[in-house]
Each structure stands twice: as C-alpha cells, then as structure tokens.
C-alpha cells in the first residue's frame, strides 16, 4: 500500500485534472449538443444539413484520432493552445455530437402538438423550441445524457495519450517509478468509479426532480 500513500499528491493532482476535464467537457458538450440538435430540427435546410454533417464527421472518427490530429495539426495552421485546452475543445466537440443525438431523440419524443400550440400563440420557431419543446426534451433524456456524461468521464483518459497528466497519465507516471501496475491502476480505476458514481447519483436525482407529468 505504500506505493499509493507515497504518491497521494500525484494521484490527487491527476484526479483533480480529470474532474476539471470532465466538468468543462460536459458543460461544453451540453451547449454544443443543444445547438446542433436545434439545427437538426430547424426548418432551414442548410442548417439541418450542417447539423447532420457535424454529427456524422465527429462520430465516425475515433476520439483518439481527433486528439492527435488537433494536437499536431492545429500548430501547423497557426493555432497555438495548451494541451489541456486543446483536449477540452476536442472532447467537447466529440461528445457534443453524441449529446446532440440524445437531445434530438428527446425533441422527437415531445408531442408535436406542443410546438404547434406554441406557434399558434404567435411564438416564433426559435421561441417555441427554446421555451416549450427543448425544456421538455431535455427532461426526457436525462438518463441517456447521464450515460453520455459517464462516457465523457471515461474518454478524458484519452487526453493522457497527448500529454495531459490527468488520472490515467498520473498513474502511469507513478508506475514508471514503482513498477506495481496492479495496485496503481486499480487505484486509478477506483477513482474513476467514484466519479462516475457521483454522476449516476446526480442523474438519478435530476430525473426524479424533472419528471414530467403527462
């Protein structure tokens, strides 16, 4: 057990960075996903096509490939950003595609009469989406969004591959010094489990709080 207690500060820093990566990515993915889902149900053909292209391109290339492309490609075109920032932006865009699809399924689950009633009252399409349809759509997809949040947490580990010292990379560094992979990575795994447990609890609480009476 000394391998763990001797390196608590490394594990702590890694865990903190994982939490930061996850929270920033979740917030960004929710914004990006909502915007893209709104585009995909818009009456404007160009917006629908752009939303669909976004989802197809982002979902059909692995996150690790995107991270490597961004870390090495962006400096080539003159965009200099830190590894952490680059990783957050890439994870946001990638998880945003999955989030958009979950939200779109929620939009499709809202009865069409809700949007019709809103428009019949004189609300514009954007107002009816923002004030009537989306609030109901988001409440129906809390559970799938919770799954995506856990997937986002797990995917932050890929940032280790491009040099961000989050929990997995921290564990790897400790292991390079101590050569006790089982204890060290089980510890990292327990850290991820604890975090995803918290996400699961939050999801369950929100789902009960926001349940819609129909």
């Amino acid at each position, binding site marked *: 057990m000394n391998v763990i207690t001797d390196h608590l500060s490394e594990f702590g820093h890694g865990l903190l960075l994982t939490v930061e990566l996850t929270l920033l990515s979740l917030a960004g993915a929710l914004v990006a996903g909502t915007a893209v889902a709104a585009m995909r149900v818009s009456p404007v053909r160009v917006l629908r096509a752009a939303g669909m292209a976004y989802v197809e391109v982002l979902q059909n290339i692995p996150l690790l490939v995107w991270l490597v492309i961004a870390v090495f490609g962006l400096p080539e075109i003159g965009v200099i950003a830190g590894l952490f920032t680059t990783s957050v932006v890439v994870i946001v865009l990638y998880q945003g595609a999955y989030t958009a699809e979950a939200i779109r399924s929620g939009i499709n689950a809202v009865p069409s009469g809700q949007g019709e009633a809103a428009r019949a*009252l004189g609300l514009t399409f954007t107002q009816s989406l923002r004030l009537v349809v989306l609030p109901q759509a988001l409440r129906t997809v809390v559970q799938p969004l919770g799954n995506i949040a856990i997937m986002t947490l797990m995917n932050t580990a890929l940032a280790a591959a491009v040099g961000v010292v989050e929990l997995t990379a921290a564990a790897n560094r400790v292991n390079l010094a101590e050569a006790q992979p089982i204890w060290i990575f089980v510890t990292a795994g327990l850290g991820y489990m604890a975090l995803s447990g918290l996400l699961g609890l939050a999801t369950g609480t929100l789902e009960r709080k926001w349940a819609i009476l129909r």
Partner: protein
Amino acid sequence: MIEVRGLHKRFGAHTALRAVDLDVARGEVVVVIGPSGSGKSTLCRCLNRLESPDAGTVRIDGAELPAEGRALARLRADVGMVFQSFNLFHHKTILQNLTLAPMRVRGLSREEAERDARALLDRVGIGAQADKLPAQLSGGQQQRAAIARALAMRPKAMLFDEPTSALDPEMVGEVLDVMTGLAEDGMTMVVVTHEMGFARQVADRVVFMADGEIVESGTPSEFFASPTSDRARDFLGKVLSH
C-alpha cells in the same frame, strides 16, 4: 375578418381540400361539420397556417398570411386556436401556460400578464387551478385552460379544432358553455365539431364539408331542417338518428 380563396391541400396522393372558399365576418360564429376525413380539421389548421396549403390564399383582417417567419408569427398571435388534445405545455403551471405568450410575444410585464391570466381563469371557472400542472386537471378543466390561454393573447378570432372530441361526455358541457359565452360576447369563431346541438344553438352559419369541399352552407335552422344536398341529408340522417 377571415377570407379564404381557392384553398387546395394535398397529402401525398390524397387531396384534403379542393378549391375551398370561405368568408367569416367579424363577430360571426361559423360551425364546420362533416364526416371524418372531409377536410374540416385541415381547413381549420390552414387558417393559421399550421398546415401550409398548396394553393390559395387566407386573409386575416385584410392581411394575407405570409409563408413563414416573424410576420406569420405576428398574424398567428391575433388568431387563437384550441386543439382537440388541449396541448397545454406539460412542464408549466396553468398560470404560466397563460402568461408565456403575452410576455414573450406581446411584451407584457409579468404583473400585467398574471393579472389578465387570473381574470381569464376565473372567467372560464378554474381560477382555483392556476398553480397546478396540466396533468393535475380533468380534461374539461384542461380544455377550458387552453381556451383561456388562447384568449390571453386578446385574439381577433378563435379557431376550435374539435375541442370536445377528446373529452369524457360529462365534461363536454362545461367546455361548450365557455364557447357559448364567447360567442355571446361577439367573438369571431370558426368551430370544427361533431356537437350538433352546439351548431344548432350557437352557430350563425353552418358549413357542411365532404371530400375536401364545402358542399353547402346556411343558417342552422335552414341546414338542419332542409339540407339541399344528398350528402348532407345522408350525414344528418346518420348523426341525428340516435
């Protein structure tokens, strides 16, 4: 007030409306009846362009309904609509259902909107339900709330698309009472319904539709006593025999 000319609407191979002309004068109550699939609801939904017609024009108070965008939203704000399935916003209280559009579209303050809303809820007899969610109300109460929500926009005309068809029989009366009250106050109304009693007593004019066309129209007493077309006679024979 409402002027419809040459309205055509197709759904795939099925023609829902063909060459429909209809004029509704200010303060007039027009009741549209006819068998299922005759195009009554489609006509009603074309009047505020929830359904966009393939040809023809709809004018509301002299202004032609534009195809889309803000101008269409502005015109829709002046025409209230009541749906068969109520369509109250499930995630908002009854009061919030009534204040949403007046605040967001008309720019009323919350105080003004809530004062109007409570007055309207009292008028339709559900003032005590203001802070409940739609799902906590009975069907009849929900439909009365939906009528109040449409009235909160102070519309120039009201469209009713089979407002009592989804209600339990004992709740039909309370909704028809509210509608009768509106008609007595001089509201311009187009009502698609199967309630022949309402048509008889409240309508200024009855319009009979079949197969996407207006087959005949007249005052309720003329229409119910001596329909001129075979199809109307046949329809009335079926609905009035019980």
